[in-house]
């Protein structure tokens, strides 16, 4: 078997073990409130601005394109509908995940990687604590929880941005677009998007932490690992997005 595949399966194995250890630590002993809340704030809450910016502009540009693209078919009135469904089912979760992945996931690798090369991770163990409990579990739990919330925010802002542009481009009232969007988004669409984002959140945090913990080679190693993490996270989001979408469609159409 060639070495790239070997490395890949090795990584999958390590991530699986890290996941299992994190879940075990989550339910073992006193709940680590302080660490989890800290991570919710740093990784989750502090990501709201990039989320709003990305979602708002995506919603707006999407309705520009649809309004013009649908015109030859006399279907520009449906712009709001398409924008809403596109945002809630696909672009909201995926764009938010990619942004948070780049911002938070790479941050985790840089932070934990630096701790690793300066022996701080060893020190945690030597002082009687567990790095999975202190570093990995709070981050994985926090981002798995925060990403669906951020996605909801993205859905909201994306639709609002889309509605705003649709009103002007297609010349419809605010109420018309709003009703149209409300009718076209079903609860399954929402769950479809949020379900994916739960999984993306987990991926971002676990890959970021895993790559940090295996960082070697001083500050140069930290730099390399951080770049690597962004690539790993983006690739795994794209691939799992396709797989999950297929799965959800198979389940409830």
């Amino acid at each position, binding site marked *: 078997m060639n070495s790239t595949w070997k490395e890949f399966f090795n990584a999958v194995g390590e991530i699986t073990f890290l996941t299992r250890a994190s879940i075990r630590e989550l339910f073992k002993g006193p709940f680590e409130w302080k660490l989890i809340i800290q991570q919710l704030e740093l990784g989750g809450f502090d990501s709201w601005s990039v989320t709003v910016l990305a979602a708002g502009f995506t919603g707006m540009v999407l309705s520009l394109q649809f309004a013009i693209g649908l015109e030859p078919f006399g279907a520009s009135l449906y712009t709001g509908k398409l924008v809403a469904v596109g945002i809630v089912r696909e672009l909201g979760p995926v764009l938010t995940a990619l942004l948070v992945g780049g911002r938070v996931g790479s941050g985790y690798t840089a932070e934990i990687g*630096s*701790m690793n090369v300066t022996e701080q991770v*060893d*020190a945690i163990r*030597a002082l*009687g604590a567990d790095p999975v409990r202190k570093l990995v579990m709070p981050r994985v739990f926090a981002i798995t929880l925060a990403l669906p919330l951020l996605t909801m925010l993205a859905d909201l802002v994306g639709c609002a941005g889309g509605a705003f542009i649709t009103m002007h481009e297609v010349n419809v009232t605010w109420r018309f677009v709003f009703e149209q969007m409300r009718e076209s988004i079903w609860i399954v669409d929402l769950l479809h998007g949020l379900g994916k984002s739960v999984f993306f959140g987990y991926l971002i945090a676990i890959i970021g932490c895993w790559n940090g913990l295996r960082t070697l080679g001083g500050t140069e190693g930290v730099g390399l690992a951080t770049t690597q993490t962004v690539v790993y996270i983006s690739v795994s989001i794209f691939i799992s997005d396709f797989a999950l979408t297929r799965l959800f469609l198979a389940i409830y159409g």
Partner: protein
Amino acid sequence: MAENIISFRGVAKSFGDKAVYEELNLDVRKGETLTIIGGSGVGKSVCLKMLIGLMTFDQGSIHAFGEDLSRMDNRALLKLRSRIAMLFQGAALFDSMSVEENIKYPLIEHNWGTPGEMDKRVSQVLEMVDMPGIQKLKPAELSGGMKKRVGLARSIAIEPEVILYDEPTTGLDPVNVRRINGLILSLQERLGVTSIVVTHDMDTVFTITDRLALVHERRIAFVGTPAEAKSHDLRYLREFIKGGKGVLEEDI
């Protein structure tokens, strides 16, 4: 002769294809200061890390306080780490925490006492390393020597019986080297701890050592007192000591 509290027996360790130890045998006696010397990259620190379970080994056995390390579960390992503390090379202070939080870290993990008792303990150990009143500073505000001393304060906070020093004086100026050496000595006298010091600084070796061990060709090539080392017929050992400005018999 004092009892052995730590013993390595036939320990082998390799990283991938690279063997670090083939047959490591070493005893550490209660209350002594043992220094481990050897060239760079021969695995001196590996020795310490295996001893507190930060690294596993491939063969042989390590006993600490009569217990087999390879048979320890998490709880036993936690107990071991309350008896053996380690000072890391770069001190490994947690950057995100203040000096006080750093020193409290092991106290909290080992349920040391009430918050009041912990505060008292923090100022106590900071005084021991001659740095009272710096509780609120962050590691980034400290110099290299100060970091080492705070790291030492953190290591002795839970009153360990054995302290492992990984190159405690590397990269420090002569004043700080002497200060750290003095601290190692005074801790041994005041607290009666056993110290294992990994170093390649010969001044350190001859200031603090009861016995020294040389790592050479994937095993311990020599163990004995500094006086024995100076007159030993292993050429590498004599070269090593001479290279480090230690005084050889024939020089006198």
